[in-house]
């Protein structure tokens, strides 16, 4: 039974689908990274999952059961923009949390606030910078005993030190078995903390998988062909190759799995100087959402 199970989630505003059919299974204790360009539908997905927006279609299960208000006792959500009350102080927000959640630990909240540099808790939220507001919201969320943590851009506006602190908080939660789903533009962070990721674009998931597996499988296999018009028969039809580019004698295959096998094949077909180029998660992400305009010709029927 997965911590979070999303099937066929859809949300349309008029004729525009902000979320266009999302299926996700997130196991318990997993740290799941949600990547995607702005406007991809990540925030809308979070809100639909939590019932804060009425989904047009789809089914969401939390540990096998549909969402009901009591479940929020063990679910924490930090939205993208600040939802704190401008006119209230940080201390009043602590009291607010205490009155609403039984699993909230004010001492831990204060500890985290201090760690993140939110100084005087008597300060009103409107006097805090954007980064400090995010830090406050994060501190309040992590001060609760929870099973599921949903974070929408938890490090936006934070300085690098605080970003690392939040990342460590996520890792600490994960080590205790909490399921964490977080979206971020900081792919380096996702690379570290996330076990699995999904890439969203225009309301759909265009890539999904375990980070280690994606990195192990998605590589560029490069080979040098003997001559400009040397033909490589049938390579393009290999299902493991997402894209094949040729620039004169240089042949590059963007593969999705088994790069070594592809390299063998290319070698057997006559290519030399075989190189397998590693791709960082950022490379993989960028290639998924915005494939490089081919400087080479896209190979067809080669």
């Amino acid at each position, binding site marked *: 039974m997965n911590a979070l199970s999303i099937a066929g989630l859809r949300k349309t505003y008029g004729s525009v689908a902000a979320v266009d059919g999302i299926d996700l299974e997130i196991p318990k204790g997993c740290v799941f990274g949600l990547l995607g360009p702005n406007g991809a539908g990540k925030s809308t997905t979070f809100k639909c999952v939590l019932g*804060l927006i009425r989904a047009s279609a789809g089914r969401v299960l939390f540990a096998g059961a549909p969402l009901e208000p*009591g479940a929020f006792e063990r679910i924490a959500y930090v939205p993208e923009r600040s939802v704190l009350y401008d006119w209230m102080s940080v201390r009043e927000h602590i009291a607010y949390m205490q009155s609403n959640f039984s699993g909230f630990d004010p001492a831990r909240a204060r500890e985290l606030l201090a760690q993140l540099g939110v100084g005087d808790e008597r300060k009103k939220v409107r006097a805090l910078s954007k980064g400090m507001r995010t830090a406050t919201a994060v501190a309040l969320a992590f001060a609760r005993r929870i099973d599921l943590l949903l974070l929408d851009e938890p490090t936006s506006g934070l300085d690098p030190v605080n970003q690392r602190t939040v990342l460590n908080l996520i890792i600490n939660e994960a080590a205790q078995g909490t399921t964490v789903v977080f979206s971020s533009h900081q792919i380096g962070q996702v690379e570290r903390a996330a076990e699995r990721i999904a890439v969203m674009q225009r309301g759909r998931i265009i890539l999904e998988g375990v980070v280690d597996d994606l990195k192990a499988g998605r590589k560029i296999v490069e080979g040098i062909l003997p001559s400009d018009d040397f033909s490589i028969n049938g390579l393009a039809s290999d299902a493991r190759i997402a894209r094949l580019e040729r620039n004169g004698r240089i042949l590059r295959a963007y593969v999705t799995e088994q790069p070594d096998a592809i390299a063998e094949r290319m070698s057997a077909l006559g290519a030399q100087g075989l190189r397998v180029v590693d791709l960082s998660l950022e490379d993989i992400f960028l290639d998924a959402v915005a494939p490089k305009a081919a400087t080479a010709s896209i190979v067809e029927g080669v």
Partner: protein
Amino acid sequence: MDYVAALRGRRLMIATAIVLAVALLVSAVIRMAMPHSLASDLSFDNMAHEKGAIVTHTILPNGAKKTVTVLPKKHTRIVAIDRGYLGGTVTITRPARKGERPTKPTHGFSFAISSTTKTKDGIHSSSIRLGGRTDLGFFSVFAIFVGLIVATMRALSFASENDGHLEMTFARPVSRELVALRIVATDMLTIVATEALTIVAGIAGLAMYVFPSLAISPYTAAVLLAAVLIPMAWYGMLLCATASMKRGYGIVVGLAWPIALGLPGVASIQSSLPFLRGIQVLSATLMHIDPLWYLHAVTINSDESMKDLASVWSRSTDTALLSVAILAVVYIGAAMLQWRRVEA
């Protein structure tokens, strides 16, 4: 109790308390600048200085000061009994003028609690009683207006949550209905508490002038009930109007008062023009769902005597209060139903 609504409510109460305290302070300052005797505040005092006036002062066995002013030329006799802080009475007797009907005597600045006039056997006599018993309901009438202001300010509870806080408000282990109910309950508590403060301040203000002896009558019950129900219905109406709004809700509230107050006026337009007639009919109908209109059932002229007050409690007040109660429940219910469906 909802924490945020309670916090906002507490601030409002403190602000109200400060305003009331300042008003009391001003009142105290003015009171201290006034001469002690109440009877001397009255404009009848001027009559004592008229030509030919015969003024007699006596001290009664109970310590009260009795002043008799006779104006022989006008056949007028003024008897003023001043018991200082405990109040007093002023009785004016004079021949009735031809075709005169009993009218209320004018008086000055002092606190007239009740007055009567009658004409009998050609003699017109009017009597003003100072420092008599004050019906508690009298203070409640003033409290209703404070309650309406507080209700107006609290009525944006849902709308202000919609304005960027729903991710926090609704991501709680409590159903939306319960969240709404808690907010409404907290706001109602704020309204009632500020009204209670106002009544207390009112009594304190009275106590600066006369001994505050309070009376409770059926009128009291009516006004106290109205003090809870009318602001509640007003709160409910504005809450319902703004429950689904995320922006621009201030305008709705700002327009509500002029419209609500203006409706009775518009409803009394006499015109044969179909367009105006239509507006008139519409206004007359809308009046019945306007909580402010029901104030007429409980607001009375402060000059009326205790006897008049009792007659206020009648069938019409019963139905008025029942209608307001229904309005309150319907408005709040509609507001809560709307808020259930709001999206973050």
